[in-house]
């Protein structure tokens, strides 16, 4: 049998340490190598025990979660899965995801018993996936609050809505999409929709911070919202986003709470409505979702782009699409903004 995944549990509540450990050890592939009651202790244990993955609480004495993440990522990088009940605090979720934690999960709560099985399985899956992450490609997102004076033209200029950028990603997505949108010009004649692996519970708080740090206007994708230029709509992988033309003949979003291959649904719907003005983008992730949607975009003469595998935290999602030969361009992560901008400009020129 393959070596077990070594997990370190960091949480200040003894009960939670026990609960999480039991939950995880119920899977034969996982072994708990230790626990720590605060960030500082966790940091020392990481250096001593060399775990493959750690689960981290946010609200702890001595050294809190966010600070701990910073120290871990610099001093002894290891994949982190955050387990926290502080999901409504935008600052914390945003910081954690920005700093490159693999995922941010709400703490499992026993109150809703029928959910406990799902929560348990989700936790186990995440830890296993975290163990295979390409740590080289986990980087924090460099940010500066964009200066409104520098970007006046971007905010007050007139741009038309010609393109739709549909971004699909699963695990590791929030970090990558954040980096992408911090350097993508909001002046592009496009709207964007991101579907990414993020718990719907933490999504609103995350999006709110997201909005503050990128020049795009970022919103949670809401049912019926009319698609506007310069706006980036974010949705969780647990929902499905499609497009629809409303009675006013405006294009709006349609959200449903099912999650059977939401990336396929997103891409296919973008292809149907925007046709050759649909640009599909696959970022890091796990699974084979999105491939069929990509095929549809290609069929409608849209453009499909995938992040270069080498630069992905998880290459799986993109590998599937590339194998099926539905990707037009494979691009390094740091060249994505340029590529997208160039695509929109060049096709615009051809059409004139």
């Amino acid at each position, binding site marked *: 049998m393959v070596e077990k995944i070594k997990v370190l549990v960091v949480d200040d509540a003894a009960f939670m340490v026990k609960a999480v450990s039991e939950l995880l050890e119920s899977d034969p592939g996982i072994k708990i190598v230790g626990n720590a009651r605060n960030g500082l202790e966790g940091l020392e244990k990481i250096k001593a025990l060399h775990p493959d993955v750690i689960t981290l609480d946010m609200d702890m004495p001595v050294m809190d979660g966010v*600070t701990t993440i*910073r*120290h871990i*990522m*610099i*001093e002894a*990088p290891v994949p982190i899965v955050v387990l926290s009940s502080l999901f*409504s*605090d*935008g*600052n914390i979720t945003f910081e954690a995801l920005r*700093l*490159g934690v693999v995922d941010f999960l709400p703490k499992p709560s026993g109150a809703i018993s029928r959910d406990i099985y799902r929560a348990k399985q989700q936790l186990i899956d995440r830890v296993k996936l975290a163990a295979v992450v390409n*740590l*080289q490609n*986990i*980087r*924090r997102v*460099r*940010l*500066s*609050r964009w200066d*409104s*004076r520098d970007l*006046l*033209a971007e*905010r*007050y*200029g*007139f*741009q*038309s809505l*010609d393109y739709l950028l549909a971004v699909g990603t699963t695990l590791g997505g929030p970090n990558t999409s954040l980096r992408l949108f911090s350097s993508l010009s909001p002046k592009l004649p496009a709207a964007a929709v991101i579907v990414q692996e993020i718990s719907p519970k933490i999504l*609103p*708080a995350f*999006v*709110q911070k997201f*909005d*503050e740090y990128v020049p795009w*206007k970022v919103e*949670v994708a809401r049912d019926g919202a009319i698609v506007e230029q310069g706006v980036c709509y974010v949705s969780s992988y647990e929902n499905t986003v499609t497009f629809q*033309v409303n009675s*006013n*003949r*405006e*294009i709006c979003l349609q959200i449903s709470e099912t999650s059977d291959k939401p990336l396929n649904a997103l891409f296919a719907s973008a292809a149907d409505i925007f046709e050759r*003005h649909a640009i599909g983008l696959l970022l890091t992730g796990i699974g084979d979702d999105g491939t069929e949607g990509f095929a549809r975009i290609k069929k409608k003469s849209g453009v499909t782009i995938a992040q270069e595998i080498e630069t992905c935290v998880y290459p799986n999602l993109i590998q599937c699409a590339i194998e099926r030969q539905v990707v037009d361009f494979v691009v390094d992560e740091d060249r994505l903004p340029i590529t997208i901008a160039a695509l929109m400009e060049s096709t615009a020129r051809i*059409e*004139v």
Partner: protein
Amino acid sequence: MIELDPSLINDFVAEAGEHLEEMEATLLRLAGDPANRELLNTIFRPVHTIKGASQFMGLARIAALSHKLEDLLDLLRQGKRSSSPDIVETLILARDRIAMLVADLTHSQTEETPVDDLMAKLERIMDGREETEEAMEIAETETIDAEALEPPPVIPATPEMETYEEEYDKELFTIFIQQLQEKLAFLSVQVERFSTAPDKFEVLEQCLDGIKNLSSSANYMGYQALALLYEQWCDAILAAQQSVALDQEVSMDFMETYIGRVIQFFPQHGDRLLQGSESTAVQLPIEVAALVPAADSSVAEWLENEVLPQTSKLPVFSEEPTVVQVQPKPAVDGRYQEPATGAGPVWETEGEHQKTEPSPDTGERIVKKSVRVDAHKIDVLMNQVGELIVDRSYFFQLFNEMRNLQQHLKVNAGLDPKDMKLIRAFTYRLGEAIVSLSRTSNELQEGVMKVRMLPIAQLFNRYPRLIHDLTRGTTKQVQLEIRGEDTELDRMIIEEISDPLIHLIRNSVDHGFETVAERKRLNKPPTGTLLLEAYHESNHIVIEITDDGRGMNPELIKVKALEKGLFSREELERMSDRELLRLIMMPGFSTAAEVTNTSGRGVGMDVVKKNIEKLNGTIDIESTVGFQTRIRLKIPLTLAIISALMVRVGDNLFTVPLANVEETLRIFAKDITTVEGTEVIHLRGKTTPIFRLSILFDIPADQLDSDKFFVVIVNAGLRKIGLVVDELLGQEEVVIKPLVDYLQEKSGLSGATIIGDGRVCLILDVYELANIAMNRQIARYQELNLGRRKAGNDKTGYPRPAS
């Protein structure tokens, strides 16, 4: 807090949104007139309503904040506190904060944004403590400034060198530096013990581990150049390891060089990093030692102690260490500004809606009723209509030929009257059909053009907030007046003029308007007025940006142009005031004594001019010193079809856009005189230069030496020139077909068109043509004068600005 009923929350959010919009509108007006009681009363109502509703809902923060706001507004409107722009700014911040809280509700059903800081501020204002507090804060920051800056050794970082500073990730960066310090110290120790170590290979292995560790954190931080350096370093060590394995002598000098190079990336922290390695007496390369600022440790410490990464404005670190700026802003405390900036994008749209209110027929409602059509489809349709117009002129031509034929048959062929009658009837019917066709095609053309039209309100409505943002934190007050926002123009043109307009508005605010104090001294109303006006003028839309600021002084422009060596003194003396004003649109020209955040770098106006001219538009500046500046943009309604004058030169046909044509004349050779090598004519007491198209384009003309000429007087910007042609063929609607770039550039041609008989006909770019002609004349004149003046102009382009 009580359990909230979701539907109730939605109602509350919707209603609060309306009130907030109303507040923003009124607050922006209040910003221009802080003491206006009526406005204060108007704001009071929505605040009160929000307070009541939020209390009912049990929304503690909104209720508390709006309550405080209400109290303050009450004091203000009763005159117990005097209103000031600072206070209005705080009111706007409070509105934005409530807006954020309401947004919180829609996101997560709970209030999340903190309000304590703003509450405290409102309270201070109510107690009248605000001024003194701010003064104290400024005093404090100044002392910090002084300490931090004491001996500011200017270290020019090597220009190509990447250096890493962090504004946002302070904490992370500190950890990073700490680790770097530790590892470098560790590496220094390894270097020291290398010579005596029994297992040299092992020591190098240790170094390798350390560097790999550093490399992974550099990668995480996104410092690519640094990561690359580490990679090279690893290679160097591997090489050293190999040498050790082969029992060769190994020098560890390269380690010091690498340590030095790493430290160079962090000029602000060199000190600390050195301390780590210094203890082990590692000698650093001299250039590195020079890079380490003596005073920096204090800055670094000060940074470390700084524990408000989100809420306070942190000093901005850049190449020079002198940039520790804690800006004492007289208008608003920087700390309170941040949330408002953050909320900007979210509430921007609301701002727009409010501005459409005065004209309920435009803006939003038009958009709502509209059909979304792919712009490309309309472009195709437009193109087809263009072709139809060409066909129409073909029919006209056929009709003319038919008439000639009829004449021919009657006179030459001697057809009998009976047959003639048939032919005449046919010609008549053909004429009728053509008239009908032309009416329909005209309407069709107009209709398609209208489809592409949008009201300019879509653009203008964004500017009230722009003005507000631009004037915030300055001592200027500007109110925006908008007229003619329902004027329609081509969607493409709206897109194209959006940037130039922002630039012009920014220019007006930055350079045009005086500060409040200055205006008072000049007996002007303290608030400046920026008027944005749009209206149609025949086939053009005119957009005027008028400010009642200080105006532009032609004398200053003259001095500046001389200083920059753009023109000689004589040339400048000859220029009219209007021509002088136009100089500000030359590349590299800027009269602003100071470069502000946004304008004054001298790269703006020439770009504006280029963009407008690209649209076949003209830009015109009028200014009265001390009174106003008016910038007038005149742009054709559509880019695709223009009416033009057809002329012939030799065998070639040219079209001159009718917008540029002032008049046509017939002159005699004796009317022409030569001044400084240029042929001129006297036109109603004015000297107008004339140029022969045949010479400019080097084509044989009919009667080069005849004594009668046709001259088309064209308007190229502010000067008029005459173009000598062989024949005037008449006016026509032509469809512009663009030329490829390399044909168009500096050719004096802006495109081509196909005329009725299928011939291709080039469209003259009058501005470029005038430039080319003028420059040739200047060049020739200079040659004549044996280069009295050293080459300031090249033959082909604009006069070269002195570098």
